[in-house]
């Protein structure tokens, strides 16, 4: 057990901070996503800059364009990028779970094609999982993919998909089994966003302009080679990917940065002198720190090469709780002044993370069953 960073890791963090300072304006807190081409170009520029330094996929094996570094490098990277508003845009998903999904389930050809491009910072993804009637109960999804010769014919729709406006590819889940086959009949298809039969609609969202889209598939014809993994193996891919997704962004660190902004304001407006507020600041800080170590436990397992466990669910709930706590505290510190800021939106936006990647209740289910070993409710 060792809670410190190695000198190399510390040095890397410093270099990374210097790079960020160089690449982004001081105090940068996220892109303006309303101008999509400009947003995408900026996120791409940033990602390629990281790729040139070998930082984008450094923890991948060298054969796939990585640097064979430890998983902790990715942890440091996310800790620096998530809080300020993720300058990689949706490319953060690539490194975290899309690339690894190809490594694990892809054909040699798919690996050759996609992994190099991901490592170079060239492509953006979106995650087409949720449907109007399949949210928490993802295994009930209904978007159909019917095999006709060497193609799948896809019909159906997805909803709440983030990053669609900038994505080059969709990581799509479709039903290939019988309608009631649930987890046994799902397949992953990789579909370019400009593919015929594929339309989309943006849904205005408090969580951000690129947060939510609806996607529709009308007799979209997908070559069989675009399938990732075997037919009906999709659930295995998803279960595995989601456990990584849950800790793919350093939300505890985002909460910590928001908290330090709050404390700055509390020191300016005198609220910091209030013992009750100071106590709540200490409480919020402790919550961020606990979520951090719970997340580190997940990286530790990843570093060991162990399969993901319920530790991801512990980390996720702890992190989203921390975010919610800080948003509430921020309002209380600002008082009426909060009306001038987007504080109310922040509360809702921070809360949205307790829904994405599995609602808190779903995470708690997993903890109850897998971590505590409690009996199933049904």
């Amino acid at each position: 057990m060792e809670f410190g960073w190695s000198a190399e890791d510390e040095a890397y963090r410093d270099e990374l901070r210097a790079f960020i300072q160089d690449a982004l304006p001081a105090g940068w807190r996220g892109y303006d996503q309303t101008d999509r081409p400009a947003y995408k170009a900026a996120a791409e520029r940033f990602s390629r800059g990281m790729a040139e330094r070998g930082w984008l996929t450094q923890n991948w094996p060298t054969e796939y364009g990585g640097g064979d570094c430890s998983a902790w490098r990715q942890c440091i990277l996310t800790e620096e990028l998530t809080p300020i508003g993720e300058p990689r845009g949706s490319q953060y998903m690539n490194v975290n779970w899309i690339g690894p999904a190809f490594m694990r389930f892809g054909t040699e050809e798919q690996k050759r094609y996609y992994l190099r491009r991901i490592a170079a910072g060239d492509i953006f993804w979106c995650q087409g999982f949720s449907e109007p009637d399949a949210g928490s109960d993802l295994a009930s999804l209904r978007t159909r993919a019917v095999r006709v010769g060497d193609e799948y014919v896809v019909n159906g729709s997805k909803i709440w998909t983030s990053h669609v406006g900038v994505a080059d590819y969709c990581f799509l889940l479709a039903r290939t089994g019988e309608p009631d086959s649930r987890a046994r009949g799902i397949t992953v298809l990789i579909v370019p966003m400009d593919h015929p039969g594929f339309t989309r609609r943006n849904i205005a969202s408090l969580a951000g302009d690129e947060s939510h889209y609806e996607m529709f598939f009308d007799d979209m014809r997908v070559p069989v080679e675009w399938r990732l993994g075997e037919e009906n193996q999709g659930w295995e891919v998803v279960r595995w990917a989601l456990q990584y997704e849950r800790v793919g962004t350093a939300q505890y660190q985002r909460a910590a940065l928001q908290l330090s902004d709050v404390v700055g304001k509390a020191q300016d407006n005198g609220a910091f002198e209030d013992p009750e507020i100071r106590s709540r600041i200490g409480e919020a800080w402790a919550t961020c720190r606990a979520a951090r170590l719970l997340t580190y436990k997940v990286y530790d397992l990843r570093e060991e090469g162990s399969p993901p466990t319920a530790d991801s669910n512990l980390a996720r709930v702890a992190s989203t709780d921390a975010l919610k706590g800080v948003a509430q505290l921020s309002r209380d510190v600002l008082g009426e002044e909060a009306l001038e800021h987007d504080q109310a939106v922040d509360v809702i936006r921070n809360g949205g993370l307790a829904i994405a990647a599995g609602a808190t209740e779903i995470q708690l289910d997993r903890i109850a069953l897998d971590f505590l070993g409690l009996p199933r409710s049904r």
Partner: protein
Amino acid sequence: MRLNLTPEQQQVVDAVTSLLERHAGKDRAMQLVETGAYDLDLDARLIESGFHDLALMEGCGPLEAALAAYEVARNVGVSAFGGMALVAPMVLGEASAQPTLMATTQTGPVRLGGGDSVVLALDGDQVLAVDATVEDWDPVNRNRSGFPVARLKAQAWVRARRFGPGSAARLRDWWRVEIAITTAGLMRGALDLTVAYVVQRKQFGRPIGSFQAVQHRLARLAILTEGARWLALESAWAGARPDLAATAAAFATGAADHIVRECHQFHGAIGVTREYPLHLWTQRLLQVQQEMGGVAGHRRAAADLVFQDKAVLKLSVAPAV
């Protein structure tokens, strides 16, 4: 960064756990609680195996001592092991083979007081240390649960040794680590007992632990319990760095409220009885929670220590990773 135990640390944990299985645990604690006695026999065995000396032992350190202290608390040892194995070596520079107790003032109640022991008290920026004997104590609680508590008579403080300026800060920091690790261990013990209970107890023809309303609340306790443990271990590893020690104590003592309330709730009536052992953990949690300024005190200390440097707030990055 490496969160799992080294083989050597695993050995320490295994060895201390096997000792505690034989010489501590709920049955033993239930006997002792009847008379309010301290477990000198347990101390003797821990000392015989050298566990009290882990913090200063070659190849070990305060982290190993904290790992052992966690197990002692989890197994409701009626021992001041945390004081002996963590606080004494790290504050006084030598391990203590006597029960080592901590006090915020010279007149306040002291956890596990009542017998021959070393008592360390905060006095301004200094530490006072007294070798106390049975005659020096006035017992204060006879409620037949929790740790025994007693108050030192004024006569004892006349013999106190005084440690130099700065020693109080060290005591405060290590005591917070001790509070954090003891609380984390007690939380784990209470949670384990409760999980076992809800799996076995049936109502409506099914285990009460299969109701989602129960499961989710227990899952939250698991998050708190694990979070408390990691923070406590980190603070021990970091040599009781003041901000980390305060953060760990703030998190653990704050979480203790939830554990106590929920574990009792899920036990129904049996949990409120003296015959059932849940109170062994929960009473102790509530006692430790009150020490040294309590939850709000630790939280404010964490806020002050983390954010005292205003420069931190001007950075575009979050503080102190």
